[in-house]
């Protein structure tokens, strides 16, 4: 480690040390609830997901379409309120193969988070997961299609799309 520090300081502890009360400790779970205001654009996007649609916005000046929708164009610095229904197909912009879940437990079957670029959009995408796919078959640019939750189970959340699966190119 360094010439002054040959091993890490402190005492390593295991779960059984706590169970046997070899060391005293306090367990605590703080309640960390949040309520996040969606704003106009994301509110409309989430409503669209509940109805099984992907909604974006288009700038009247540069014609660029983005999803998730925004109420301003970051290229033209103009307000944007042209709403467009988009297909539920697109390409993988980037992806990762993770053998660790969001709560850091190890996974036998990896999860594949990916940024999806929906067809018709430019330099815009959102994070989701890939399903029904072997990681080694995926590439940046692989075509994907949304797999939706049943309409009765959709509740206006990004998880109303269960995952994106590899799809054939259908012009």
């Amino acid at each position, binding site marked *: 480690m360094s010439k002054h520090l040959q091993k890490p300081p402190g005492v390593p502890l295991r779960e059984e040390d706590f169970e046997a009360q070899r060391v005293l400790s306090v367990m605590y779970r703080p309640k960390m609830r949040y309520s996040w205001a*969606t704003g106009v654009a994301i509110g409309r996007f989430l409503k669209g997901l509940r109805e099984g649609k992907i909604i974006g916005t288009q700038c009247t000046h540069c014609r660029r379409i983005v999803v998730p929708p925004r109420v301003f164009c970051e290229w033209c610095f103009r307000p944007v309120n042209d709403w467009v229904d988009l297909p539920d197909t697109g390409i993988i912009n980037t992806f990762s193969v993770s053998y660790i879940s969001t709560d850091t437990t190890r996974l036998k079957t990896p999860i594949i988070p990916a940024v999806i670029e929906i067809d018709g959009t430019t330099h815009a995408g959102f994070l989701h997961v890939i399903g029904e796919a072997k990681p080694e078959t995926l590439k940046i640019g692989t075509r994907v299609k949304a797999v939706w939750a049943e309409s009765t189970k959709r509740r206006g959340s990004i998880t109303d799309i269960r995952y994106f699966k590899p799809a054939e190119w259908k012009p």
Partner: protein
Amino acid sequence: MTTEPIRVEGDFPVYFRYTVGVAGEKFFREIMENGRLMASRCSSCNLNYLPPRIYCERCMSRLEEYVPVENEGTVEAFTITHQDAEGNPLQEPVGVALVRFPGAYGGLVHRTIDVLAIGDRVRAVFKDKKERTGSILDIKFFEKIS
């Protein structure tokens, strides 16, 4: 027409385990096993720290000596709360006070019974020995000495 979601609600699943540390071990084991409060002592500064600390904050020396402290003290400040930590109304209001002890530097914040004034004398009431777990709640509350 369905309405647009205006908010997204969630919960961060965060857990932690706080180890009480070297001085905390002395303090809480003494409560658990002997029903007694312990302070760490700096003899050069003539200070008894309660809760105990492993360094003297005046002279920075390491503290190895521990001394017992009386279970009776004086209310320095108090409040009566009608809500729990999350803001829910309580059926019975709960008294909470900062209690200082003779000869000890520091104090304890704990639940109280019958405390109505600053300066009230109070005594620590411990749980039965077999119910103690090495926690600050091994002290049930501080009751007023009439």
